[in-house]
């Protein structure tokens, strides 16, 4: 007697299941897009508005994107935090540093370093510079939490 051949085709729910890293990547590209891709539209809209408002206030208040300075170890963390904003980080670097600068040139007399330092000094002179930089860092931290939240939802750990 022949045994029934097991069906190797996965059920539809399994076939349509995406990698949990896709919502994470979407969340990194645009705040809230990861949640929108999983059907959480109200949350996605709120996250998008809050993160972009925090980012916009930071930039308007004189906040400056962090650059890696080997003499200051915490600058690595701050730069990583800014990078968590995805494409928004490109905007903040262009506005606050005049270009896509990620690392402070080590040579003190190099014109590139002087140009970056001059841009940063101009920003520091603004009375709300500290607030602005805090807003920018907070927006980055918020997006890191959104990426982790999107990962948890995609894995089924959270509703």
């Amino acid at each position, binding site marked *: 007697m022949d045994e029934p051949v097991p069906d190797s085709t996965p059920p539809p729910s399994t076939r349509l299941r995406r990698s949990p890293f896709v919502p994470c990547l979407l969340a990194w590209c645009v705040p809230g897009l990861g949640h929108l891709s999983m059907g959480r539209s109200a*949350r996605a809209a*709120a*996250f998008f508005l*809050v*993160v972009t*408002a*925090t980012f916009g*206030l930071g930039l*308007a*208040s*004189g906040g400056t994107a962090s650059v890696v300075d080997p003499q200051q170890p915490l600058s690595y963390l701050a730069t990583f935090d800014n990078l968590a904003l995805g494409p928004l980080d490109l905007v903040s670097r262009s506005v606050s540093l005049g270009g896509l600068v990620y690392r402070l040139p080590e040579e003190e007399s190099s014109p590139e370093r002087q140009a970056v330092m001059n841009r940063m000094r101009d920003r520091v002179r*603004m*009375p*709300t510079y500290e*607030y602005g930089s*805090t*807003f920018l860092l*907070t927006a980055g931290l*918020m997006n890191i*939490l*959104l990426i982790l*939240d999107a990962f948890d939802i995609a894995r089924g750990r959270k*509703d």
Partner: protein
Amino acid sequence: MIPSHVLNMVAFAVLVAIFFAFLTQSRPKDRARVVVVLGGAMIVLSLIVAYVMYPFPLAR
């Protein structure tokens, strides 16, 4: 740009409170409660810390 320090602090507290309300709660009523409690606590505690620091002299 918001020129007032207090308004900057209030804007920061409100934005962070809304963010955590949507991140941690599902029902609108619970979200509103988190915004009020968390945002209010941040504002009130900041003002208390500011007044506690007031007698200390600035470094010269």
